[in-house]
């Protein structure tokens, strides 16, 4: 290297490292590092970031065996189905049909294969070429003309003509040498062959029609009876493993303006397997197991809904398990934990109080309402009635104010007209203004009336979950109040009332306030001592246990938890109060959900006698006088009032002066998507972050388990700065823990799931469930079914078992005397919509006795008069009755609006006689009442009374009921006494099933006439029932006596 600057000094011995030192080694090492990092890069891309490849290898290794293990069962099932006589018969029929059409089909196929198809094949290529050349030339010609190039157009015309005149070589089958065909000739022949082909296909279809039908019936029967996949399809699955492609498996869904890509199946390869596999069959690999609920997937097909909209997680990510499951920070919707999976349902089904396939969310919603959470926490959709009532009341005040203002304005205008000094125009204007104002006033009054109706209706609909404390002093024993408030679960572990963190002094303050603040309530005086044994019988048999739980002489804690447990009632209140309460609950608490069971005075006293005898000998109470002195202490009133207000007692109870208390809790409608920073973990932030529970789930679970948990280590200026939420679940060591520990975690999971699901919907709008019409009616109906616990007595959906049905007295096998057994159960309401007239149903719901208040008939059921269990009188508003009617109609796939009661031709004398004979012969009056009876044997006459048949029943339903009752209600006691006439369509009375007594009552003469009747007997009965009169009741009463 040349030295630019000449230096005079001596040369150094050393070499200049900058110029002479080699950097080969560093460069070499750097290059090695570069190559290595590039290789790593590729490895990372193809293996590290694609962990699904390992899963897929494992799948290929295990799936074959797993499917293989299904083969034997499938084979057995196949054998079972294919050896069935029906299958054989269908197969024979199919083969016969095939054989019948075979010659004709063969003839057509031969013609097709010899004459048509080869000629089409020979022509198609030359025709295609010629047509496309002509089309291209035509295009040029048209455009030349359009642009005014006359010369060119002429040229193209000539070209086109030449093309059409040109001969092409066509080798027709059977021909010896290629022929030379013109354009027109080719196209004509080609079109002819095509239409001939269509014609032959059509003919084949017509000829094959019967054979195809037989084949479809055969296949259809087989598919309907096969409970597993066929061996062939299992084998196909096994074979498919060999050609399994190692790749990202994705579902691609176009939604709204965007798209949803789900790659979950890349690892969860068996999730949608047509043959369900569980982890045990897959060598313990849970990841490959099939979706546990294929029925649910049928409603929400993954190819339309994807996976992550319901489950959370990041459907597009395949980099790692954590990423795909959305467990990385900043992913807003991490996959829900297993116990909270159903939170995903709430995306769309917030308004559905009851969902099939979602027991956890159902439970969570139920608990939120049932435990009274909604009293303190607003939640969109819950406690709607109370909110609407408040709004309506406010609106009434507004309307009244408007009315006053308008009235004053009218007076002013009138004054002007009466003023002698006013000008003619002014008077004229005033008259007109007054008229206009009077119209306004009229409108305001109309609106006021509407609002008053709304208020009256909502007043019936609003419910509070706790008892009315306005009558505390008239109802409760003072010493009991003190013990109860200290820890309600110590008295009764199953109570809904939570435990408040109050000390003894505060308990006394609260009790004193409630005691002094209550209004004396007159207790209905009912005479009689009451028979406790009879009372117990009534509680069991009248249906009380559909809502309440109680321990009877025979059974420990039977009944339902919907309402308060009735044990230890005697320690709480007096017999006189209980009697007055059961007689008319709404008199004591206008917001109670408890209906009237229409009990006689005697029944009330008996029930009160038994309930008030229920006491525990373990209880230790303060002396009555001492308790009274504490509760009467005026000094405690103000302190108690403050506590009651602070703790939000008025959320569940009615308390004098606190009717308009607002909700004290935070709104929870979208609590699940509240930013985490806005949840106050108090001083426990660090602890929760460390335990990886610094998330919504962790917050909710800890808060529900111990509501004061976030008060830990905090310094409070006053007692009231503490967290207020009471304890709904006992902690270990607290009263009630031993009794309830089995259910606490389940309930907390359910509520946590409910809260986690309480988010703004983030799934695309087009996937959201927005019910209309019948679906909406069903949705709204469930709120009432659950509000009034209809499903405690009635079966609403097929397969459901109401609590009441499980009582020993209603067991299927209950046969001991005096016990109603299976036939005494409240009726199933499956199919109720198709059974009853909607107008009648609404009337029935308003007054299930179908009788005036003061009468004896009012005490019994209006329809099933023989039943001991009562359909109670609920105080339903008209709107609620409408909702329930629509609900049942919708469940039966019927709409309310299009129901018109069909009219029938009146029965002439002969027909009437025949119908009467059929009725008597069938011995209908054995189980059915006829109306007007005084004494009823409950053991036999449990069936609905004929008194109401005319208004109650949809005639179309009667026809099916009398012919095939078992298809409507499987296992019904209703006998099928009609049969199809041999070889005909007609339904006739099956004389073999008639009893001798019944036949004797009809008489031979009339039976003969009935047998010779040429019409349909079911039709006859349907018309008879649809035009039932009191006269018929009397007639059949007489017939029964014979």
């Amino acid at each position, binding site marked *: *290297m040349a*030295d*630019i*600057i000449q*230096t*005079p*000094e*001596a*040369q*150094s011995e*050393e070499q*200049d*490292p*900058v*110029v002479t030192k080699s*950097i080969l080694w*560093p*460069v070499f090492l*750097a*290059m090695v*590092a*570069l190559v290595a*990092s*590039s290789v*790593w*890069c590729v490895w*990372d891309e193809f293996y590290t970031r694609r962990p699904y490849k390992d899963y897929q290898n494992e799948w290929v290794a295990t799936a074959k065996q797993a499917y293989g293990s299904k083969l034997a069962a499938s084979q057995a099932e196949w054998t079972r189905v294919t050896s069935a006589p029906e299958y054989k018969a269908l197969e024979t029929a199919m083969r016969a049909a095939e054989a019948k059409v075979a010659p004709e089909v063969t003839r057509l196929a031969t013609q097709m294969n010899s004459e048509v198809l080869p000629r089409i094949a020979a022509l198609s290529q030359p025709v295609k070429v010629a047509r496309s050349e002509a089309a291209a030339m035509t295009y040029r010609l048209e455009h030349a003309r359009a642009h005014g190039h006359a010369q060119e157009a002429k040229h193209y015309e000539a070209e086109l003509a030449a093309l059409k005149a040109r001969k092409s070589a066509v080798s027709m089958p059977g021909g010896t040498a290629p022929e030379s065909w013109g354009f027109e000739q080719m196209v004509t022949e080609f079109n002819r062959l095509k239409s001939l082909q269509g014609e032959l296909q059509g003919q084949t279809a017509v000829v094959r029609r019967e054979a195809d039908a037989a084949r479809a019936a055969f296949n259809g029967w087989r598919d309907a009876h096969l409970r597993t996949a066929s061996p062939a399809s299992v084998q196909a699955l096994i074979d498919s493993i060999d050609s399994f492609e190692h790749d990202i498996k994705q579902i691609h869904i176009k939604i709204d303006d965007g798209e949803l890509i789900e790659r979950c199946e890349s690892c969860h390869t068996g999730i949608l397997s047509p043959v369900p596999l569980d982890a045990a069959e897959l060598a313990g690999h849970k990841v490959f197991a099939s979706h546990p609920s294929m029925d649910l997937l049928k409603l929400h097909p993954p190819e339309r809904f994807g996976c992550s909209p319901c489950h959370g997680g990041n459907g597009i990510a395949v980099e790692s398990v954590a990423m795909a499951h959305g467990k990385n920070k*900043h*992913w*807003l919707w991490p996959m829900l934990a297993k116990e909270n999976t159903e939170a995903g349902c709430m995306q769309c089904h917030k308004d559905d109080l009851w969902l099939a396939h979602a027991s956890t969310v159902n439970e969570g919603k139920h608990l939120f309402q049932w435990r009274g959470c909604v009293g303190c926490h607003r939640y969109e959709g819950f406690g709607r009635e109370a909110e609407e009532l408040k709004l309506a009341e406010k609106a009434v005040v507004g309307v009244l104010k408007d009315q006053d203002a308008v009235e004053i304005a009218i007076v002013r205008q009138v004054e002007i007209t009466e003023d002698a000094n006013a000008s003619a125009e002014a008077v004229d204007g005033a008259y007109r203004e007054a008229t206009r104002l009077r119209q306004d006033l009229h409108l305001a009054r109309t609106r006021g009336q509407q609002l008053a109706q709304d208020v009256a209706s909502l007043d019936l609909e609003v419910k509070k979950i706790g008892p009315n404390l306005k009558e505390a002093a008239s109802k409760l024993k003072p010493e009991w109040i003190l013990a109860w408030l200290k820890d309600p679960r110590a008295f009764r572990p199953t109570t809904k009332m939570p435990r408040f963190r109050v000390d003894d002094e505060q308990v006394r303050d609260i009790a004193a306030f409630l005691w002094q603040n209550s209004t004396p309530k007159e207790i209905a005086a009912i005479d009689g001592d009451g028979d406790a044994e009879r009372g117990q019988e009534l509680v069991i048999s009248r249906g009380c246990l559909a809502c309440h739980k109680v321990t009877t002489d025979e059974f420990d804690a039977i009944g339902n938890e919907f309402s308060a447990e009735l044990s230890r009632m005697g320690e709480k209140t007096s017999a006189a109060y209980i009697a007055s309460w059961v007689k008319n609950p709404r008199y004591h608490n206008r917001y109670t959900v408890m209906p009237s069971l229409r009990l006689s005075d005697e029944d009330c006293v008996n029930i009160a006698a038994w309930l008030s005898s229920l006491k525990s000998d373990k209880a230790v109470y303060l002396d009555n006088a001492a308790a009274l002195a504490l509760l009467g202490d005026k000094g405690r009133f103000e302190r108690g009032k403050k506590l009651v207000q602070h703790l939000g007692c008025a959320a569940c109870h009615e308390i004098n002066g606190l009717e308009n208390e607002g909700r004290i809790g935070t709104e929870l409608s979208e609590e699940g998507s509240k*930013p985490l*920073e806005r949840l*106050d*973990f*108090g001083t426990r*932030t*660090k602890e929760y*972050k*460390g335990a990886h529970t610094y998330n919504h789930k962790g917050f909710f679970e800890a808060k529900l388990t111990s509501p004061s948990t976030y008060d830990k280590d905090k310094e409070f200026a006053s007692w009231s700065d503490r967290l207020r939420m009471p304890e709904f679940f006992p902690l270990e060591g607290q009263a009630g823990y031993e009794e309830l520990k089995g259910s606490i975690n389940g309930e907390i999971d359910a509520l946590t799931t409910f809260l986690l699901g309480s988010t703004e919907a983030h799934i695309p709008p087009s996937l959201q469930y927005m019910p209309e019409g019948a679906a909406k009616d069903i949705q709204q109906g469930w709120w009432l079914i659950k509000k009034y616990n209809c499903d405690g007595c009635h079966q609403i959906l097929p397969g459901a078992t109401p609590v009441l049905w499980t009582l020993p007295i209603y067991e299927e096998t209950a046969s001991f005397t005096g016990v109603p057994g299976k036939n005494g159960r409240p009726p199933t309401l499956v199919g109720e919509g198709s059974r009853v007239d909607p107008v009648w149903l609404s009337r029935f719901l308003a007054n299930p006795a179908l009788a005036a208040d003061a009468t004896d008939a009012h005490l019994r059921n209006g329809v099933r008069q023989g039943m001991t269990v009562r359909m109670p009188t609920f105080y339903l508003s008209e709107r609620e009755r409408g909702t329930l009617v629509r609900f049942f109609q919708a469940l039966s796939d019927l709409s309310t609006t299009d129901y018109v009661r069909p009219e029938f031709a009146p029965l002439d004398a002969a027909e009437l006689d025949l119908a009467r004979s059929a009725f008597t012969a069938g011995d209908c009056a054995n189980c059915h009442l006829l109306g007007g009876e005084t004494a009823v044997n409950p053991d036999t006459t449990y069936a609905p009374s004929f008194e109401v048949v005319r208004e109650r029943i949809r005639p179309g339903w009667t026809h099916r009921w009398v012919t095939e009752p078992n298809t409507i209600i499987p296992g019904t006691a209703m006998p099928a006494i009609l049969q199809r006439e041999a070889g005909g369509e007609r339904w006739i009375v099956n004389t073999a099933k008639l009893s001798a007594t019944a036949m004797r009552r009809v008489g031979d003469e009339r039976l003969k006439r009935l047998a010779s009747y040429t019409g349909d007997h079911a039709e006859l009965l349907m018309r008879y029932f649809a035009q039932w009169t009191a006269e018929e009741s009397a007639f059949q009463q007489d017939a029964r006596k014979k």
Partner: protein
Amino acid sequence: MDWHQVWELVSLPDNVPIVLLLLMVPFYTWLAFREAGRNDRLIAELERDPDMRKTHHRVPYPWKPGWPKTVHVWPHLLKREFLAAIIVTVVMIVWSICLDAPLEEPANPSLTMNPSKAPWYFLGLQELLVYFDPWIAGVVLPSIILMGLMAIPYIDVNPLGNGYYTWKQRKFAIATFLFGFLVLWVLLVIIGTFIRGPGWLWFNLGETWDHHRVDHQVNYDLHELFGVTGAWQVIAFGAAFVGGFCAIVGGITHLWVVKCMPLMRKRMSLVQYATMLQLWVLMMLVVAKIIARLGFTVKNFLVTPWFNI
């Protein structure tokens, strides 16, 4: 000491450049000073030789008599740059494999993240928001900084130090740069990254970032501390304080330059010198403001209805 919190901060892919910055900036500063020391010694040695004095004082260390004073770009520079390029490529590849892009959730207009932080290289500017009005910290100061940086080649025309490290020849320039960059930029970036937590509160390293932390921070305007009241009196007081501060700092700097660095003053025209002095005084004002706020809970020096300093 919340090690979980420390790890969360240090391991955040966003913060990795700053962790590297923490190590690299001191290292390169040290390296530069080591080279500068060697060069300075070499220069001193060469300057002792009257023949070499005029021509050879730009030779970088190491140098031995007879070695070339300068070398060609090709191959001597380029081959080293090639090596550096390979190493940087390797580092970038490994980095991109090991650390993924720190993506966060989609922006939510109704929810501001807390703490809400600028990209790491802007955190110094964001930290200035604590001390100044938004428009001063966000508009005026960045503009002055940018214009000042652009003006440097025109203010400082001294060719010494071009192409080699030196400290002795460029003490003032290097010290000013290091102060402005290391203290006023890098340090503020580090504070903004590791120290400022939710609510932009000061969390010492290792303290848990608690969103519900309650803190007591009351700051006063200077005139409140001095009990000045009245609209125009406050403005006059503030203006006098700021004006006085600038005058005193400017004056001291001037005396210092004249006394200790006469040569530098002589090399500069009046315009160059005045511009330099103004930028210097402004920089000191920022420092004074930070010290006053963090050390003495002083909010503003000058309070006017339109802006505060």
